């Protein structure tokens, strides 16, 4: 029975964590596309490609964390202990997912700002004009 509750806790932890990761990754994938299309000046093929690569990285890091954080280090006797352990574990996964999500948003907005700067006008007006003879 002792091993039973611990194992169930692990299984529930995995189910919740995987579901959450997939949900966040899909949200990112769906809503990040618009940003990327804008960044790449309407090049949808490139935007889709980068979007996909970003989501793969997101999955790898999050599943990696979920997997590493699985072990409890103590055994669980009752359902109450199981739920308590679960809340801590799932809470950590949520915080990591949130951090990763904001990091991704930061990257998107940074890429977008960089791209908009490429066509930016000169920062200051000229002091005057002179005739230019070709080199």
């Amino acid at each position, binding site marked *: 029975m002792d091993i039973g509750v611990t194992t169930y806790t692990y299984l529930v932890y995995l189910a919740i964590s995987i579901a959450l990761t997939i949900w966040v990754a899909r949200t990112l994938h769906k809503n990040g596309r618009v940003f990327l299309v804008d960044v790449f000046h309407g090049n949808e093929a490139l935007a889709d490609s980068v979007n996909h690569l970003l989501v793969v990285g997101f999955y790898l890091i999050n599943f990696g964390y979920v997997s590493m954080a699985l072990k409890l280090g103590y055994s669980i006797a009752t359902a109450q202990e199981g739920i308590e352990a679960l809340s801590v574990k799932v809470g950590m996964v949520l915080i990591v997912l949130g951090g990763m999500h904001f990091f991704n948003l930061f990257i998107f907005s940074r890429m977008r*700002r960089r791209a908009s*700067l*490429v066509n*930016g006008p*000169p*920062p*200051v007006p*000229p*002091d*005057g*004009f*002179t*005739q*230019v*003879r070709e*080199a």
Partner: protein
Amino acid sequence: MSGLTVLYDPTCGLCRRAHGWLAQQRKLVELVFVPCKSDEARRRFPHLDHDLTALDLTVIGDQGQVYMGPKAWLMVLWALSQYREWAYRLSSPELLPTTRRVVSLISQNRYQISRVAGLSR
């Protein structure tokens, strides 16, 4: 604007050093370096007051726009892929007075700075 000509002071160590650094940077706008008061500079810009260009950094756009002093520094920064953001930041109304002061200070003391930093030949 697709190109900027930078008229720099070849007699100042700091300027030569800056030239070397700029040459390595990734650019959004092409930079051409011409020593100020040189025959090349006079040939390219026949109507420019070349004595003035020796006093402070001068940058000239491909349509003949003349930028002098702090404005020239900002234009060079603007030409660099990695620092365009900084050009906008430093030219904002809040920071422009400080930028002008700092740039003028460095420009006016460029020979002393070169000597202290061991950059003069």
